């Protein structure tokens, strides 16, 4: 993000109904949000669809946006909820994800010495841990900001990040991880 002041001004104008200001916010955050959702979903097309839904929802809910909370955390929070809604509605896909998670978890626990690719390790994390890790380790969110976005207590978020980091370190071959 380049200029927090400009972002705040655009958010304020968008809240007052300015579509132009909102389109600037879309331009500003589309890259980060789509990258976050792409790593969360694993599918570019699906992630982009959820990102579009996120922006549409954000536009319609601008009146409820609390400027004190920060637009980015609010937006990513909507994206996260949209992702979860989509995941719930696709029960078959959810089952497949869980199975994949359990299988990959077993691979990590077995410690066969094989160096698991970090992307596969990330995909094997439970969605909440994956989201927490992506926001805090890759998207440069503060813990407080990520906790607000994911709507979980700060302690839970820190625990998710620590566990995710541990697994990812293990995947990178760190004996202490």
């Amino acid at each position, binding site marked *: 993000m380049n200029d927090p002041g400009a972002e705040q001004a655009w958010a304020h104008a968008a809240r007052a109904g300015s579509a132009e200001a909102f389109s600037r916010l879309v*331009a500003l955050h589309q890259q980060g949000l789509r990258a976050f959702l792409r790593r969360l979903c694993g599918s570019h097309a699906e992630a982009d669809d959820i990102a579009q839904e996120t922006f549409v929802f954000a536009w319609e809910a601008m009146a409820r946006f609390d400027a004190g909370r920060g637009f980015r955390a609010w937006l990513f929070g909507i994206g996260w909820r949209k992702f979860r809604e989509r995941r719930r509605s696709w029960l078959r896909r959810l089952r497949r994800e869980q199975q994949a998670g359990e299988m990959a978890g077993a691979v990590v626990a077995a410690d066969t010495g094989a160096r698991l690719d970090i992307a596969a390790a990330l995909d094997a994390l439970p969605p909440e841990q994956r989201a927490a890790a992506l926001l805090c380790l*890759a998207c440069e969110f503060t813990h407080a900001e990520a906790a607000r976005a994911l709507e979980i207590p700060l302690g839970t978020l820190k625990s998710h990040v620590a566990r995710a980091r541990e697994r990812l370190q293990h995947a990178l071959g760190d004996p202490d991880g």
Partner: protein
Amino acid sequence: MVEAVESELRRRMAADAPPARDLSFELAVMARIERRHFRRAVAGNAAVAALAALVLFMAAPPLAQAAESLNGNLIATLVAVGLGILAMQWALQREEA
């Protein structure tokens, strides 16, 4: 190693990331917003039209009687027409707001 995890994650995110400016995506978002607006407006107008038709259907007999009872009372007719125009303007202004 902590830095290695974070830098590797950032590298992966960057490799997967869309371009910093993506006009087609931005346009798709704004088009989706406009489509939703349009659909809502159409649904709202259709609902208002259906309600108006129902009200007119129900009010037609008493209105016809009232028109007959006016019996050429021009002032009362003009007042009724004026009130109708004001009501339409109010509805249009409300829609624009």
